[in-house]
């Protein structure tokens, strides 16, 4: 029952914020698809055409990593300042802070789905892959959603106390992009550097998606299992941080 109420609140808030954003201008929505499309286009040009990375169906390979990466990094950068920017609302009456959070993640997820349908699907179908494999897509996205939400909640809570968190994270995400196998396969990394990937939580959240739409083989199940484990650890960490800080949170806002 509680969950039903929660969902109704998240849904209404998301619909309203979409309305608020796109009322004045339709450009916003075009940008939602244009932004990943341009990022994809430039990276494909640079890495495939200029640097000649040798990966079959490189465009689909790249999209398999880039799209979830954009969701992951942009959601976290949008949610990190959320508790601070919405502090007035949170202090005014009892509202589950997770509603605001859920709504922002859902908002970004809608963007993700839009760019999946408009950008990935055409590539997927033209490379002659099996359509029915895509039925497993929800399973591949659960770890990504839970993991992203958890990191976002944790960072947003920390940002209440240390207001430069978002600034620092912007910097860290810039670095993280290069050490996360998004535009190159992780096999390119020498064995003595593999630990960089092993200790990078983002890798585990992104992998199931690429594994499904690009490799489309048995690696999917292992990648998804690892994704679930990592997202569960992130989730529990976020719960601990939230529980420890939620009082001081109101005090400090």
């Amino acid at each position, binding site marked *: 029952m509680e969950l039903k109420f929660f969902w109704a609140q998240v849904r209404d*808030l998301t619909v309203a914020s979409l309305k608020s954003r796109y009322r004045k201008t339709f450009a916003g929505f075009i940008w939602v698809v244009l932004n990943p499309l341009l990022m994809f286009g430039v990276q494909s040009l640079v890495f495939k055409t200029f640097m000649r990375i040798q990966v079959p169906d490189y465009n689909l390979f790249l999209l398999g990593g880039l799209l979830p990466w954009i969701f992951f990094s942009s959601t976290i950068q949008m949610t990190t300042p959320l508790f601070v920017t919405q502090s007035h609302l949170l202090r005014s009456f009892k509202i589950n802070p997770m509603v605001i959070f859920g709504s922002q993640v859902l908002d970004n997820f809608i963007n993700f789905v839009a760019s999946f349908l408009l950008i990935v699907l055409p590539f997927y179908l033209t490379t002659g892959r099996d359509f029915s494999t895509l039925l497993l897509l929800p399973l591949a996205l659960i770890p990504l959603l839970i993991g992203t939400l958890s990191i976002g909640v944790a960072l947003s809570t920390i940002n209440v106390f240390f207001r430069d*968190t978002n600034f620092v994270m912007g910097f860290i995400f810039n670095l993280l992009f290069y050490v996360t196998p998004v535009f190159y396969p992780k096999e390119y990394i020498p064995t003595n550097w593999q630990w960089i990937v092993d200790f990078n939580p983002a890798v585990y959240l992104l992998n199931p998606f690429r594994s499904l739409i690009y490799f489309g083989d048995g690696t999917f199940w292992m990648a998804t299992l690892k994704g679930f484990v990592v997202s569960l650890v992130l989730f529990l960490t976020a719960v601990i941080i939230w529980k420890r800080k939620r009082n001081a949170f109101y005090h400090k806002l």
Partner: protein
Amino acid sequence: MPSTTNSELLLSVKNLKVHFELEHYQHHGLRDVFVSAITHPVEFFLKKPELLNVIDDVSFDVTRGMRLGLLGVNGSGKTTLCRCLAGMMVAQSGSITTDAEVRAIFDTGTGILPELTGRENAFLLARLFFPEIKDLRPLVNEALEFSELGHFLDVPFRQYSKGMQARLMLSLISAKSTDVLILDEVLDGADYFFQQKLSVRMRNFIKSAGATIFVSHSADQVREVCDQVLVMNKGKIGFMGGVEEGLDYYHKNLAPVS
């Protein structure tokens, strides 16, 4: 229907304690933390944070029909106490026992999405206030009509004056009664409280609530609304009892000299 038996317990607070860690106030940003961890590592990792006791062993009961005024100077723990009662904050020790629906309002200037119209914000606020109601239209429409904001309802909320914001918000919250109502300074120093129509509605709303906890700095409002007073003093209960004695205690011991 106001009950005549004053003994029914709606909410019970036992030995409530809330403290904050003061460590957060020493750093302004993650970069400061990073620097102090490097320059003073021993201190940084071993020093225990100082604690600030905001609520210090508070116990009281709220029974049906009670109109409890909550007084105290700024920083005495009134709002923290209200936030605990509303379930927004969680105490480190002690307990709050209640089966009642508790609704708490701390501010009336809240538009969720200021770019949207007052009407759209009202529906959104109603969804957050009353998650259990499936079809919000009858309730919101009644509240909007009552607010008499007329064509302003279709103007973006950010263009509202403070008074209009409060009118919208108060019309909305008072559209459905609740078991325990907490109003934290929301009617303070506002002329709309004395605006006849809204004031009658707010009074009826307070009357229709099972119990009310009313935080205010205005002695007149406390006299009018409350039949009991609890005075907070540095996180503890300084006084609990009749309104006049409570106001007396507050003015003699705590109120800032003006």
